[in-house]
């Protein structure tokens, strides 16, 4: 029975996929660190929401997704986008407002999308992606594509009316969608204790007669296990589920956050539960990787980031005369 004591991830995935998951998590981390640095250097306009500390949730939740599957993402969406394999260069280019960016410089970080890889887009409206995800699942069911949609949203979003309406419709129509709540304990400054009248957000699943589960969102394997099951259920036509990944954003909400609503102690405690360190440790302890592999992974990621930054920096800005392209179909080259 040794194998059943092994973490789910080690049992469920080939080595290659496990290494790939770790590689992605590292890439997300380095990507965001580089974005942060670019931001500090004034290369990036506007605001930016970093998911540093939440990488296991993004990558773990996408493990069983196939090419045809969709995700909807949030304002804190870089990880989701990279988890689905987005191009780093086009992402940086978007942050730099370049024509080569995913949104041709018109969207920025808050609207990053990668429609070809099934990412229907980050959303600047908290809760805005929830009904859209349900719509995507409705399409899949009607058109018989077999696609599953994973809908990411935050703990703060769970108090929007859109959450309620979306989960209810997904449930009555038994749609193939998985609601993944990334509960990082705060919606901006408001803790879930203060904002949300229930202990675990997953308990709200019962109000829609769907399964709900709360997992350690910094444990890659736990996330993957819960979401894989939910995806399988959706794929089998059994309807939606709600999975709550308990995690933490190690950075402030956005650049202007002074962290007045939480303690340094709390942040430090969570830093100790770093999902990347944990996954790496697990892979080493199960012989999937060796201690020495980390340096190589880091190095690889750093090189990719450098190349991507160079691509973005050297890319052209959109033309001012083309500011109003893409408002309607047929306006703007494609």
């Amino acid at each position, binding site marked *: 029975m040794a194998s059943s004591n092994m973490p789910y991830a080690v049992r469920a995935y080939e080595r290659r996929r496990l290494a790939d998951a770790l590689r992605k998590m590292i890439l997300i981390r380095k990507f965001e660190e580089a974005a942060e640095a670019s931001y500090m250097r004034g290369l990036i306009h506007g605001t930016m929401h970093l998911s540093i500390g939440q990488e296991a949730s993004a990558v773990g939740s996408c493990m069983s997704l196939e090419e045809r599957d*969709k995700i*909807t993402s949030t304002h804190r969406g870089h990880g989701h986008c990279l988890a689905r394999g987005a191009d780093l260069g086009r992402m940086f280019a978007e942050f730099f407002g370049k024509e080569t*960016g*995913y*949104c*041709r*410089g*018109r*969207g920025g970080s808050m*609207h990053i*999308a990668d*429609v*070809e890889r099934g990412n*229907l*887009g980050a*959303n*600047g*409206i908290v809760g*805005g992606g*929830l*009904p*859209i*995800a*349900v*719509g*995507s*699942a*409705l*399409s*899949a069911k*009607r*058109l018989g*594509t077999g696609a599953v949609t994973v809908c990411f949203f935050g703990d703060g979003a769970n108090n929007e*009316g*859109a959450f*309620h*309406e*979306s989960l*209810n*419709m997904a449930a*009555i129509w038994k749609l193939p969608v998985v609601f993944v709540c990334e509960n990082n304990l705060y919606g901006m400054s408001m803790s879930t204790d203060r904002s949300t009248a229930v202990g675990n957000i997953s308990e709200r699943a019962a109000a829609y007669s769907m399964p709900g589960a709360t997992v350690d969102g910094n444990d890659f394997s736990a996330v993957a296990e819960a979401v894989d099951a939910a995806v399988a259920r959706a794929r089998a036509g059994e309807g939606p589920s709600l999975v709550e990944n308990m995690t933490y954003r190690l950075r402030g909400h956005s650049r202007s956050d002074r962290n007045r609503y939480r303690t340094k102690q709390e942040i430090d405690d969570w830093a100790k539960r770093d999902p990347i360190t944990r996954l790496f440790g697990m892979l080493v302890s199960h012989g999937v990787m060796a201690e020495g592999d980390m340096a190589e992974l880091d190095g690889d990621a750093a090189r990719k980031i450098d190349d991507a930054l160079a691509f973005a920096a050297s890319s052209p800005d959109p033309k001012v005369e083309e500011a*109003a*392209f*893409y*408002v*309607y*179909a*047929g306006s*703007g080259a*494609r």
Partner: protein
Amino acid sequence: MSGRSERVRGKLSYAEAIREALDIAMDRDERVVLMGEDIGVYGGAFQVTGDLFGKYGPERVIDTPISELGGAGVAIGAAMTGLRPVFEFQFSDFAALAMEQIVNQAAKLRYMLGGAVSVPVVMRFPAGSGTGAAAQHSQSIEAWLGHVPGLKVVQPSTPEDAKGLLLSAIEDPDPVMIFEHKLLYKTKGHVPRGHYETPIGEAALRRIGHSLTIVATSIMARKSLSAAEELARQGIHADVIDLRSIRPIDRETVLASVRKTGRLMCVYEGVKTLGIGAEISAMVAESDAFDFLEAPIVRLGGAECPIPYNPELEKSVVPQEPDILEAARNLVQGRI
């Protein structure tokens, strides 16, 4: 598309014309689905979907719970991923519940994503006063959506246009909002058979005159036409333009008429301030047609007041035919 099927037949009501458009679209394209509250077995609050439920079943005529924000959002998400949803609001007033999805999502997604996505959704809004349903069920809020780039907004006034504009809307790759005046549902007119499209963005010059230009929307186009007949008997000959589309607006048709007549009156049911007449007036006042204006531009719009319940009060707060007559006479006779 369906070629030579333009034979004229018995009249259809506006509601029947819409139903026929839905039927044709559903028949030719599996991806077209209807969504909305009580559009199934109930047939819709205004009996527009009627028995399409019987014909196409619950998979394609989808009753939604009373969840306007979510329902609209589901239609939008479905439109992004391969379906062609036509979403019915039970009353246009309830658009207020779904503005987030309509404006922040449907209208902007193509742009925000740099053209990477299309949102071919159609939304239908039964609008306007005159049914005694009071302030929360009688509004004309098309100006809100007319102010939003990324949307197209139309207001058919005849059964023929109701069908043709809806068929255009369903084919359109962008979100199209259709405001249908509730008092029009039972009005009848000739409706060509089969599939045809009335182009979005083209006004209809319904009547040709020379004394003044009346630009009107929705039911006011009918009232204006009828007033124009009476005016003609009094020697005043109006160009009557049924705007049909308020985003985009058919600038040229309006300007050409004003250059000819030198006098402009806008007639609309929405609240006067910041209503569609404000835009028409401003569009003319900033154009070369300004030099042809011989008199101030008159706006006849709704009163600065929610729609009251009492029937006499209700009538008094939106333009009626006698108001149009009087305003037109005053304009032509230089009495303003």
